[in-house]
């Protein structure tokens, strides 16, 4: 029998994998992929709670807005990555340390 807990565990696994990707990847595009994983796991949680609670479709509405914000986020983030590539000729995050010098 699949219950709410199974969905929560699935999204916890996706979330921690996303955290791992964000923390360990050097390539900026790869970090973005980790962020997408995190947003997807949050969406699974929202929709699971929307199904197993008495609040109607509010959770699904939140998920729609999360998807909208994710689309806006990835567009701006890729613009920043492209600008960084134009300036530094690399997208490796440990090379973007101008402020530290």
């Amino acid at each position, binding site marked *: *029998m*699949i219950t*709410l*807990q*199974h*969905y*929560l*565990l*699935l999204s*916890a*696994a*996706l979330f*921690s*994998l996303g*955290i*791992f*990707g964000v*923390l*360990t990847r*050097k*390539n900026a*595009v*790869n970090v*973005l*992929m*980790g962020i*997408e*994983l995190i947003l*997807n796991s949050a*969406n*699974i949680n929202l*929709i*699971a709670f*929307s*199904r*197993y*609670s008495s609040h*109607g*479709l509010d959770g*699904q*509405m939140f*998920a*729609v807005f999360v*998807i*909208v*914000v*994710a*689309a*806006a986020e*990835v*567009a*701006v983030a*890729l*613009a*920043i*990555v*492209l600008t960084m*590539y134009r300036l530094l000729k690399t997208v*490796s995050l*440990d090379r973007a340390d101008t402020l530290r010098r």
Partner: protein
Amino acid sequence: MSVFDILFCVVALVTVGSAAIVVLSRSLIYSAFALLFTFFGVAIVYVLLGADFLAATQVLIYVGGILILLLFGVMLTHRLYNLDLKTDTFQLIPGMLIAFAVFTSLALVATQTRWNLVPEKQISPTTETIGRLFMQEYLLPFETASILLLVALIGAAMLVRRRSDV
């Protein structure tokens, strides 16, 4: 175990497995294609949860938009003759520890909490209700989201334009 349970287990395994490939693979292209399977897996999870409209939205926006955008990002930020597209990793041990701690705490919260559950509702089409909610209760967030998208569009175009015509 019913057919539904087996289906959920298979989809969850595929989703988590391809998510692991996304964050562990050394090749950017492999990561991007594994992300495709993760997004489809999440869409099927939405279907299992009875969210038909969101499953379609997931496929349209994530697979059709965000993934293509990420692939553009991969292609545009590497010289085209450099075909191996490898990526390096750093902070492996701290990252692993933090990810493990996050997973443990989330799993504990998910399993130990007494959730205030209602009996499973009948699965019904959601698109009409979502449309009504957008035009009534959620009208202000809906308009705000459209302004956010416009701002993001202009901002992204602003960031990547050529500096010569400033």
